């Protein structure tokens, strides 16, 4: 075997080795980049969002001592419970308003008779509940709460001559804020001025009548 043949064989082997190396390298690069792409497509694209969602869901489930998978049922149950409590609270407010009405002297002179009831610790829901019950009285009742809310209730017999929304509008003109509702019942809030004064102005503009302070004092 002469040198030429040896060199030829060595060259063939070197070429085959080099080819195999580059073929394997190319295959590896291709496979690994495909794996990366699949990972990003199948996993990470959704994981970033899913991760945050899962974390939030886990936190919520932990708070409720429930499994993440049970969360929808628990949330529905809690919502129903909340609605039930709300109904119960409304019923209590109605009874409470009835009780107040039976203890406050609602008789009023004047034509039409106007009452202003002020209670510093009342909130808009209390004011609304009280006003709703006051709609059964043959008078105009203006209820003022401590959170700058107020309500105007007009008795059925006066509904032809007075409008609750009109009276509420007069109050917001003086005290600011806004109001809305029907001719029988209007609710307002967000007053920036003195509601007391505004209500008294309205009261005096309509008829000489009394202001009722259920607690701590009643100036009726």
């Amino acid at each position: 075997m002469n040198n030429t043949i040896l060199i030829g064989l060595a060259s063939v082997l070197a070429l085959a080795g080099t080819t195999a190396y580059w073929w394997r390298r190319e295959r590896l690069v291709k496979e690994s980049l495909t794996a990366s792409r699949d990972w990003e497509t199948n996993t990470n694209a959704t994981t970033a969002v899913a991760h945050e969602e899962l974390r939030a869901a886990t936190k919520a489930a932990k708070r409720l001592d429930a499994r993440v998978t049970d969360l929808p049922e628990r949330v529905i149950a809690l919502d129903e419970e909340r609605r039930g409590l709300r109904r119960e609270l409304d019923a209590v407010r109605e009874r409470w308003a009835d009780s107040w009405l039976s203890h406050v002297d609602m008789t009023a002179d004047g034509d039409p008779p106007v009452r202003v009831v002020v209670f510093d610790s009342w909130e808009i829901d209390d004011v609304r509940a009280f006003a709703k019950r006051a709609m059964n009285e043959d008078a105009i009742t203006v209820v003022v709460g401590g959170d700058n809310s107020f309500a105007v209730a007009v008795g059925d017999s006066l509904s032809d001559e007075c409008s609750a929304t009109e009276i509420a509008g007069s109050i917001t003109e003086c005290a600011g804020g806004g109001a809305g509702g029907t001719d029988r019942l209007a609710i307002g809030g967000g007053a920036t001025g003195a509601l007391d004064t505004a209500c008294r102005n309205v009261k005096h503009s309509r008829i000489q009548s009394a202001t009722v302070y259920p607690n701590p004092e009643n100036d009726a």
Partner: protein
Amino acid sequence: MTETSTLTVRSVCPDRTPEWQTFVETHPDATVFHTAEWLHAIETVFGYEPRHVLLTDGGTVRALVPGFVVFEGFGWSVLNPFCEYGFPLIGEGTMDAAVLSALQRTDDTRVVKDVSWSGVSGYTTTDFGGVPTGSSIRLSIDRSFTVLWETVFDKDVRRCVRTARDHGVSVTDGTVDEFYPLYLETMRRLGSPQFPERFFASLADAFRESVAILLARHDGEPIAGVFLFEWGDATIIWTPASKRTHWDYRPNHLLYLEAIERACQANRSVVDFGRSRRGSSVHGFKAQFGGVGYPLMSFVTPPHRAGRASLDGYGRLSAVTPYLAPVITNPSVGTRLKRFIHE
């Protein structure tokens, strides 16, 4: 968003870098394998050259990536050895791709061990090659232990736990001295090189109350054990060990149950059962506890060296290694060999 060009790569020593520790403590996805304690224990025991990097932008830490230079048979790579999670911790408002690109500027062969829940993305745009390495099962502790026991665990778990208790197996806290012989026996059975005992001792010293060793005992004799990391809001069951002669007593079920109960009591969010291959008996065992499997992937740059992250070779060797166990796990051979087998 922080752009690539504005990130500065800084090599640091985590246990002497307060910013590293603060970033890890405050990052929601940080694992025990990102901590300075873990990295310090590896460096001390195995003597790898550290190559941990902190990526900053105008002095503000934006990301960090742990890594050691390890020998891979045909070259050297930078990775976080002996764990599943070596992904970059990236701060809010920083682009993942910017961090990954910055890593490529270091000219190392970098292996980033990631998992689907880490949320890190951008490997495709930065040309990292991916190699699947199995999956880790994680059980979300989003309910009480009683609820888990009754509704989440497979009925086989309940049956095996009852079997263990009926046989008088109990679980107690243990020490490294008690755990290590069990671990060594397990490694011999598998034909896999073992960690040196001082690695466990070093971890136990460094982490103190964040490490727990649980031992299942029968007639006072340890028959199985687990080495746990109870760090942050996760419990990681890192190294289980058992005596095959006592498997009928089901001590491993009892140990895992105890680990989960401890996690519930400590109000942790998750129990991580570690890596396993889908379809393997280990995977089946872990799946009985009702967790979710998350795919694990090692990303390598440059991509033509992706083969270095593959665990397939270990899988093929596992058919032979049990026969070579006396040599592989020899005290003077195994611990040295482990330095090169850092799956």
